[in-house]
């Protein structure tokens, strides 16, 4: 009989099935995160009286909640199949809860966004609170969606994954806002973006540490490429934002000569901000792809199933 040093398998065939999900799904993760985090940020900005930032964030949130269901439906095939999920309410099914969450949040966000676009001087109220309350979970439930499965590299990351998602979502939300917000108004978003980027890197590091050998699903193959890209983009994005921080751009003495320089500097700074935002968005997309692909790679390797079940 074949001695069993390392776990054997049946002709190397996978034990659990890889997902049947199409490319819409990682984008769904991304836009869900964008919507959720944007909603939170938007209402925060509204209450903090930063209408400029708020309006742009609400726009981001609105885009997120409109695109998400479209992507989901595209993955399912037809709209009726999305509605099928709303015929029952099932606490054991993240997919089902997610559907409800998406629907509810969609409503709240649209309302709040609408109100804010109409009334530029709005200081926030229940709609904002609602959108924020539903936005945060919308950004993290997608993590539950992947960890609540039989796929080792996902399931074993059940504790850290939501934090990675949250951070990535926040980064994307700030990124989106920073594209259009005037430099002067951008400050909190900029700081938030930098913080989110750092948080994402930290959470990811902890996650990989806990996963141990399973982490290879994230570090190798396509998932690995996306992962590296995500890190590069996110870090670069963060640096760009640092470079464009207020602290480095205090206008000096008031004089025509300096005013001219200030204007040039202002333009450079604007460019840096936009670049930072774009990099964060791109980083977030890559991150979701990396996690998505890792699930496939993990499922296709029977050894991972066996390792996790034979400690």
């Amino acid at each position, binding site marked *: 009989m074949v001695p069993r040093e390392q776990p054997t398998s*049946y002709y190397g065939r996978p034990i659990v099935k*890889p997902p049947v999900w199409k490319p819409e799904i990682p984008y769904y993760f991304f836009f869900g995160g964008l919507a959720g985090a944007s909603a939170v940020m938007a209402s925060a900005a509204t209450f903090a009286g930063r209408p400029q930032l708020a309006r742009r964030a609400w726009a981001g949130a609105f885009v997120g909640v409109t695109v998400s269901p479209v992507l989901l439906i595209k993955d399912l095939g037809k709209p009726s199949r999305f509605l099928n999920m709303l015929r029952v309410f099932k606490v054991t099914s993240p997919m089902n809860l997610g559907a409800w969450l998406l629907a509810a949040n969609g409503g709240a966000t649209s309302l709040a966004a609408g109100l804010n676009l109409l009334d530029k001087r709005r200081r926030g109220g229940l709609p904002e609170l609602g959108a924020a309350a539903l936005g945060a979970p919308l950004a993290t439930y997608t993590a539950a969606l992947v960890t609540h499965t039989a796929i080792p590299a996902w399931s074993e990351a059940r504790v850290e994954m939501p934090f990675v998602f949250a951070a990535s979502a926040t980064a994307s939300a700030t990124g989106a806002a920073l594209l259009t917000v005037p430099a002067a108004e951008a400050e909190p978003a900029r700081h938030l973006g930098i913080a989110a980027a750092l948080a994402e890197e930290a959470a990811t590091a902890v996650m990989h540490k806990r996963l141990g050998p399973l982490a290879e699903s994230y570090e190798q193959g396509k998932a690995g490429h996306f992962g590296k890209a995500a890190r590069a983009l996110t870090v670069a994005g963060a640096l760009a934002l640092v470079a464009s921080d207020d602290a480095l751009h205090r206008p000096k003495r008031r004089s025509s000569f300096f005013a001219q320089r200030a204007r040039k500097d202002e333009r450079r700074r604007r460019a840096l901000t936009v670049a930072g935002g774009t990099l964060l968005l791109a980083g977030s997309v890559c991150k979701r792809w990396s996690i998505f692909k890792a699930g496939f790679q993990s499922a296709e390797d029977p050894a991972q199933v066996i390792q996790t079940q034979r400690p």
Partner: protein
Amino acid sequence: MGGHVVEFETKPRVGFFTDTSVCIGCKACEVACKEWNHVPSDNQGFSGNSYDNSGELGANRWRHVAFIEQKLPVGVEGGAPDSFVQEAARQSLVEEGLEPHADEDGFRWLMSSDVCKHCTEAGCLDACPTGSIFRTEFGTVVVQEDICNGCGYCVVSCPFGVLDQRQDDGRVWKCTLCYDRLKGDMEPACAHACPTKSIQFGELDELRERAAERIEVLHRRGHGDARLYGDSPEDGVGGFGAFFLLMDEPETYRLPPDPVVPTRHAGTVWKAAAAAALTMAAGIGASFLGGRR
């Protein structure tokens, strides 16, 4: 639909005891299942994996017979033809040459018919967002194709990789434990076709007793390797409705050694998600404190 389960007058739970020690690998079960359930054919060509050319359970294969030659054929695990592994294997043969095996040296050909386990705690059922997967009055787990929306969530929620999506219609398919036959008081097609009673159908409690006796006998006859798999309600899925007697480690048969239904981790999963959500909200909020200048 999920909601309807309660309306059934529930019957004693039924299932399978698949005793691989008497399986002759005739594949009658695999064919009978396809015939009865009109499962489409899928021809995967010559695999070289012993006599198994149909791979594994999936949307178009609800019973699958595995073949394991211990002292495996050269290169079967060696990946691509001409792979380094094969070359090495061949070389070592040329140099040492292999001793023709004596029967005692443990050369054996294991055969085993795999099927959906009809778990007590079924990952697929818990995961299904539409309630398309439900538990029947017989305690079996069945997909209702008219409701399934092809979300594929059950696929990644089954610890055994049983379910899969059918390419053409995007819905998922698996063993129904011949729900239609059960309702007509007929035994499932696969069990009916099995010539050696390797597939035994019946009431679960009774099957478990039978299995316990059987394992006794095999151990007495010195088959130390023989073990029951999935018979215990204590395991990670609360016991299988269709359990097995195996002659080797589960993974040898493409079965997870210690499967756990994802739902068992739901607590952690949701706590973590909530914590992350709050942290995010707090973080964002914080960054706006200090308000406007």
